[in-house]
């Protein structure tokens, strides 16, 4: 297992290198990083020449890639063009916020989806099962931005009409969030709606997976063997069926989690959350390629790391794929 992980890590480094080259090339050829500055009236020729000099913008792409890679590795992706702001501290901040959002959304999605999926499978073709099926299709079909807006409208009106503040509809914190438990409550009230929006589609997908896996396992020969041994139904379900049914879901969740880091753009934009997605949109709008590339690299790393995690958990749960 350990050698397998090391091998996969080395392989990941190669993948990241290739990804970094592609990202750099595509972002660089897609536009002149200085066009925005050149169009701004108050910016002197001198400043532009300075920046060109500092970021080696006149060199061939491959050389510029070398400089960029050096900065990325030794100087945490360096600074932005405009304002020479350090990139990494900003990304760390928004990453923290996004992780809060995603982890909460995934925990909610996983617990609900597992319960729904298992119960649907155990009561196949019951009213509950049909309802769950219907809602999961609705959940999948609902556009995220629409749902987000509807929830905002709803809770804003609740506030306006009855003067009750249940959930906030924008930002991460109130003006004065306080400390300790007050801060946590304030954060929860702010994150609740984005978490709901983000988890809806995942609840739908995961519960479908769980239902399918559970049905397959329940009808498997080894569950029949477990029953034929005289085990209690609870034990048959928990020890023999549930654990096996979790295996495919684990992979899906791990892969999805990696993808979510970059996939929260819409939700964060609608709720004005200072997270990864929000940051990315701002970076794109600023016309500065450096934060954009840093963001892309970090999201790629996230996806690769969670791919690896998916494989490792799979190996732990299923002895048949334990790598050596």
């Amino acid at each position: 297992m350990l050698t397998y992980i090391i091998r996969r890590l080395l392989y990941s480094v190669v993948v990241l290198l290739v990804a970094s080259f592609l990202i750099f090339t595509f972002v660089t050829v897609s536009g002149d990083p200085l066009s925005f500055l050149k169009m701004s009236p108050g910016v002197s020729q001198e400043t532009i020449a300075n920046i060109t000099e500092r970021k080696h913008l006149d060199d061939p792409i491959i050389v510029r890639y070398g400089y960029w890679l050096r900065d990325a590795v030794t100087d945490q992706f360096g600074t932005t063009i405009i304002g020479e702001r350090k990139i990494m501290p900003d990304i760390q901040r928004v990453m923290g916020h996004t992780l809060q959002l995603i982890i909460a959304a995934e925990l909610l999605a996983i617990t609900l989806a597992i319960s729904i999926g298992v119960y649907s499978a155990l009561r196949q073709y019951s009213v509950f099962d049909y309802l769950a099926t219907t809602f999961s299709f609705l959940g999948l079909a609902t556009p995220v931005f629409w749902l987000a807006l509807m929830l905002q409208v709803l809770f804003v009106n609740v506030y306006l009409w009855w003067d009750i503040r249940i959930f906030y509809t924008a930002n991460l914190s109130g003006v004065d969030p306080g400390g300790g438990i007050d801060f946590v409550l304030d954060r929860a009230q702010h994150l609740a709606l984005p978490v709901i929006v983000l988890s809806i589609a995942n609840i739908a997908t995961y519960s479908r997976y769980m239902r399918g896996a559970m049905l397959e396992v329940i009808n498997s020969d080894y569950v029949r063997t477990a029953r034929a041994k005289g085990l209690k139904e609870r034990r048959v379900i928990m020890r023999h069926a549930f654990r096996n049914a979790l295996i495919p879901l684990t992979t899906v969740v791990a892969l999805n989690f990696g993808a979510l880091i970059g996939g929260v753009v819409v939700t964060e934009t609608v709720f004005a959350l200072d997270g990864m997605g929000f940051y990315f949109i701002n970076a794109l709008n600023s016309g500065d390629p450096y934060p954009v590339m840093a963001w892309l690299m970090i999201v790629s790393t996230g996806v690769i790391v969670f791919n690896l995690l998916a494989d490792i958990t799979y190996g732990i749960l299923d002895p048949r794929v334990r790598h050596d």
Partner: protein
Amino acid sequence: MPEPVLSIRDLTVEFSTEDGVVSAVTDVNYDVFPGEILGVIGESGAGKSVSVMTMLDLIPKPPGKVLSGEAIFKGRDLLTMSKRDLRDVRGGDIAMIFQDPMTSLNPVLTVGSQIAEAVLAHNRDADDDSARDRAIELLRLVGVPNPEQRFDQYPHEFSGGMRQRGMIAMAIANEPSMLIADEPTTALDVTIQAQIVEVLRTAQRETHAATILITHDLGLIAELADRVCVMYAGRVVELSDVYTIFNSPRHPYTVGLMNSLPRVDVDQEMLQPIPGQPPSMIAPPPGCAFHPRCLHSRGRVVCRTDVPPLRTFGEGADHLSACHFAEELAEAHVVGIGAEQPA
């Protein structure tokens, strides 16, 4: 004759499927006596597995449904027993060995823990250690080498034959008074089959369990079974001791089965397969379900209109056949029917 351990009476089981209602098992009756091996043979889909699994409530319901019947085991009806009581019987007094050892063991649990689980389920005073010791002892009994190491291995680290040994160990863990082996050798290589037959023999000797042995393998029947129950299209069509079944079968289907066997004692030009296809279980032929393929019916109307009951016919009380013309078969005899194929 001693009291039977198990009496199946008028068992009828259906499955509702998209294509219609499958009459998997219809009016099945048979007894199993202490210590004997009852062989159950019949084509694929004849209802062999369903008839035994229904007793332990192991068929999926729905789509399965028991329409009628009793399964009296040691004086109690398994079909009306409470779930709790049935759980005690499962793996305790009645144990099953399934066909496919590749899929019948849980892939994510060690083989040993799955056997120990069977021990723990039926022994209140067993703890993990004593269950482990017992499992290792059982593995040794069924001929698994290095049982201490094997205990902690996963099913994928076992070969097919070894897995089936594991299944057998699990089945005899609580010294059942009845063993049900549903095609225990079908999924295995021929060489392994012989070994598993030996293990089954050992298991049966150790436990003195009455055994139902379901198989397609007539050789296995000849070798192990004391009595034979022949099933066709969900019904029992012939029932007798193994010698009689092989030497003077009294149902055309059984006769056909015997003719499809290579024999050394009779000079045969070629093997005779039974003509035609197994019947649809959704709309079985009216009358005797075997009549469309029967070489003996010769178009007689009663075969197409009346379901023949399983009955004795003057050759002694323990030979039963469900053929309207069972008596005639005594004269025609096995070879005769094979020889005079209608043009």
